[in-house]
């Protein structure tokens, strides 16, 4: 159902929209256009002169093997974070959907991680997996794993993936739970009577009916892994060791802020911007055409 407000004055709606538009202009369009402009510029090493170089920054970027390495790292990281957080959240939601005693407490506990700030989450995981002191790291040692995320790139990657996924589980869980509860109980019962045991029921009925939710969450999680994990990576590994955990967003920061390559950094931001716009477009298109059963 659509609600239609009636305004007394023709200007009033624009006036009411003005603050929102102003905020968007100042905090999004302005910096975005700055980034685009910046990406066409090249500064000398001392920041004394600036030259307009067209696509030189982009060309440099795509001929740099380090950039491809970062793309691979980002891809692996995002895929792993999304897969891990989605599957664990789905598993937990399926368990929480059953009418159990203490289900409310269980659900509340599951929502907590979402309220933890990314950097804090990172620090928490660092403590647990700190090679010499962390409880879990020591556990791994006793199992014969030479755990050292400070030196081993794969270990570092696993660590940031786990921390980032853990943070996102709550969000996914809530959506999955809502999605599960929207499936009519009688449909599941009909499937049970039709001879489908729980596992088969899940894959043939529940999972397909959940697919709109899953797709929505997949996009959200990819965007999260691309952009919102900056704090976790910064707190835990700083992109290291030797760039093993440097994602695209982290590289923007690394090159621009620390490396002083403003033009290259801006070019990277523009590429990221294009990626996020593409993801959002896919999302919107899908939601618009989304089948409602």
């Amino acid at each position: 159902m659509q609600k239609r407000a009636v305004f007394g004055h023709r200007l009033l709606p624009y006036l009411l929209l003005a603050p929102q538009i102003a905020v968007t202009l100042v905090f999004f369009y302005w910096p975005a256009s700055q980034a685009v402009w910046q990406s066409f510029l090249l500064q000398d090493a001392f920041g004394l002169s600036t030259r307009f170089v067209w696509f030189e920054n982009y060309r440099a970027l795509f001929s740099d093997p380090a950039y491809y390495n970062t793309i691979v790292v980002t891809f692996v990281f995002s895929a792993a974070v999304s897969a891990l957080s989605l599957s664990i959240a789905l598993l937990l939601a399926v368990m929480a959907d059953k009418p159990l005693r203490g289900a409310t407490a269980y659900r509340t506990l599951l929502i907590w991680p979402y309220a933890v700030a990314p950097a804090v989450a990172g620090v928490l995981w660092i403590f647990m997996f700190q090679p010499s002191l962390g409880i879990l790291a020591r556990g791994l040692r006793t199992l014969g794993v030479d755990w050292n995320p400070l030196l081993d790139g794969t270990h570092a990657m696993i660590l940031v993936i786990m921390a980032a996924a853990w943070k996102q589980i709550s969000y996914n869980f809530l959506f999955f739970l809502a999605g599960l509860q929207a499936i009519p109980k009688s449909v599941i019962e009909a499937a049970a009577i039709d001879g489908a045991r729980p596992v088969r029921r899940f894959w043939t009925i529940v999972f397909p009916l959940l697919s709109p939710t899953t797709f929505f969450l997949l996009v959200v999680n990819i965007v999260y892994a691309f952009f919102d994990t900056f704090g976790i990576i910064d707190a835990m590994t700083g992109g290291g060791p030797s760039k093993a955990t440097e994602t695209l967003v982290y590289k923007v920061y690394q090159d621009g802020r620390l490396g002083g390559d403003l033009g290259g950094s801006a070019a990277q931001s523009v590429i990221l911007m294009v990626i996020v716009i593409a993801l959002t477009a896919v999302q919107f298109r899908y939601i618009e055409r989304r089948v409602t059963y």
Partner: protein
Amino acid sequence: MAGVTFREVRKIYAGGIEAVKGVSFAVPDGAFCVLVGPSGCGKSTLLRMVAGVETVTAGEIRIGERVVNDIEPAERDIAMVFQNYALYPHMTVYNNMAYGLRNRGVPKPEIDRLVREAARILEITELLKRKPRELSGGQRQRVAMGRAIVRQPKAFLFDEPLSNLDAKLRVSMRVEIKKLQRQFGTTSIYVTHDQLEAMTLADMLVVMNAGRIEQIGAPLEVYERPATTFVATFIGAPPMNLLRLAAAELSGLLGASAAVPPEGGILGVRPEDLVLAPAGARSDGGLALPLTVETVERVGPESFVYGRLARGGDVIVRIPGAAAPSFGEQAVAIAPRHKLHVFSADGSRRINS
């Protein structure tokens, strides 16, 4: 195929609500059993326990010889038609019907044959490629029926399958369900609170009230000899008239031979068994109730006269045609003795035969 037997079946829900309070009866193999009763009396609960989607708190349910209390719904080999049809929204009609067969590992050509056969019987062949959301309510109902018959299960369970249809469709589907059940000879348990459905479909009518069985019998038997005042007023429309009578009045009416309890009892007489006579008329040996006409409902082939009794209380008389008395007229409602029903004072027991 198999009969279904209930032995002292109870259901207490998690909240402590006792929905079914010890129910025992047997539905013979191939019979069409209809469960009726007012809303909340536990009909659906009982049916869902047979299906296995609700646990049995105590007692025993058997399908055929097998006790099914702890058996998964998947292994009970029954089919259920839900009130909201519960079709699988993401599957075509064909797949909705094929789903149960696939789960049981029926070979593909056989599935195809069975689905097409069921679709032909229900005249939904041209709908096989559609999704449930592209169907009308009546068509969905047919698909739900198709999903049930395609598997040729041991028993059909229906939970108010027609209540979402319009009146006309309901009548034709009712006839069709009865026809299908005869054709397949499958034991069926059907829940409804529509009397007409109950009376026309049932071989065996089970009247429930507040988690207990009030009466079991053939529909006409229940209509003609209701076991309690609850059944008497629940079956039949408009409901049976009930009058509280003292012991002396009762034995006067029934004759000295009848065993009348000292605290008196409740007299029942159906509106259709009463005849309106002019004021002052008497009934030889039967019931004669002087009344003043209050309202008349004319529905065409018959009319319902609502009267206020001279002795206190109300009465409904059903008369043929539209030639009914008008408001304020005095009349006498008369019924022969063999049309009277007598119940114990608390209404829990029938006294006369």
